[in-house]
C-alpha cells in the first residue's frame, strides 16, 4: 500500500513536472530522495509482521497411539491385545533384543528423528519410548 502511494505520488510529480518545466529540478530531487526510503520502509513493515509458527508439541496420547500402531503392525508381537501403554517389549510382548532394535528403528522413522545408541539401548517399553519422544523437540 505504501509502495502504491509512493508510485502514485511520483507519477503525479512527474506529470506536474511536465506541465511546469520550471519546477523540474526540485521534483527530480524529490524523486531521488524518495528512492532510499522506498527501499527501506517496506522492509521495516515486513519485519514487524513476520510471524513464526510455534513449536507444535506432540500430545502424549498421540505419541502413545502412534507407537502402539507401530507395534500392532509388527508381526513378532505375541498377542496384539497385549499392546498397552505400559507394555514391556520383552516381558509383555515377547520380543527379543533384536526385535527391540527393530521397533526402536521403526519409532525413529515414524517421528523423523535419530535416537543415539545409548538412548536407544535404554528404551525397553512403550512408556519409555513415549517419554523419550515427548522429550525430543524435533520429533514430529
Amino acid at each position: 500500500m505504501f509502495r502504491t502511494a509512493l508510485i502514485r505520488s511520483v507519477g503525479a510529480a512527474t506529470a506536474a513536472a511536465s506541465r511546469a518545466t520550471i519546477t523540474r529540478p526540485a521534483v527530480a530531487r524529490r524523486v531521488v530522495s524518495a528512492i532510499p526510503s522506498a527501499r527501506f520502509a517496506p522492509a521495516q513493515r515486513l519485519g514487524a509482521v513476520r510471524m513464526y509458527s510455534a513449536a507444535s508439541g506432540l500430545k502424549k496420547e498421540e505419541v502413545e497411539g502412534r507407537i502402539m500402531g507401530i507395534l500392532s503392525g509388527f508381526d513378532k508381537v505375541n498377542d496384539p491385545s497385549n499392546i498397552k501403554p505400559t507394555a514391556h517389549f520383552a516381558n509383555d510382548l515377547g520380543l527379543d533384543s533384536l526385535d527391540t532394535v527393530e521397533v526402536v528403528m521403526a519409532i525413529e522413522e515414524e517421528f523423523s528423528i535419530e535416537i543415539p545408541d545409548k538412548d536407544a539401548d535404554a528404551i525397553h517399553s512403550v512408556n519409555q519410548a513415549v517419554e523419550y519422544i515427548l522429550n525430543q523437540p524435533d520429533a514430529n
Partner: protein
Amino acid sequence: MSTTTAIPAYRNLLRAARIAFQGDNRVLTAARISIRDGFRANASLTPSDPNLPGAIKHAQEVASILRQNVVQGKMEGEAYKLRIHKDTERGDNDTIKMPNGTKVKIDGKTCSDK
C-alpha cells in the same frame, strides 16, 4: 549371542541399509529381511564362542560397504543420476586402486610434462 557387541552391530547395519537404499522400499525390505536372517542364523553363538568376533566383524564390514560403496542411480533421460551422499567413498586417481587408504603417487607427472 553376546548382546553387548551384536546389538550395536545390528543397529549399525540397519542404519547403513537405510542410508544405502533410501526411498527404495523393495530393496530396503529385502535388505532388512536378509540382515535379520543373518543375525538369527548366528543367534545361538555364546559370548565365548570363537566364531563370534568374526561374525560381528562381518556385520560391521557389510555395514561399511553399504554406507560407502553402494550408490543409488536413477535413469533420467539417457543417463543415470547417482545419489552420492556424505558417506560415499570418494577416491581420486592416486588412491582409487589402493586398499585401506594407502596412498601412492602413480607417476608424479602432470599433463603439462612431456
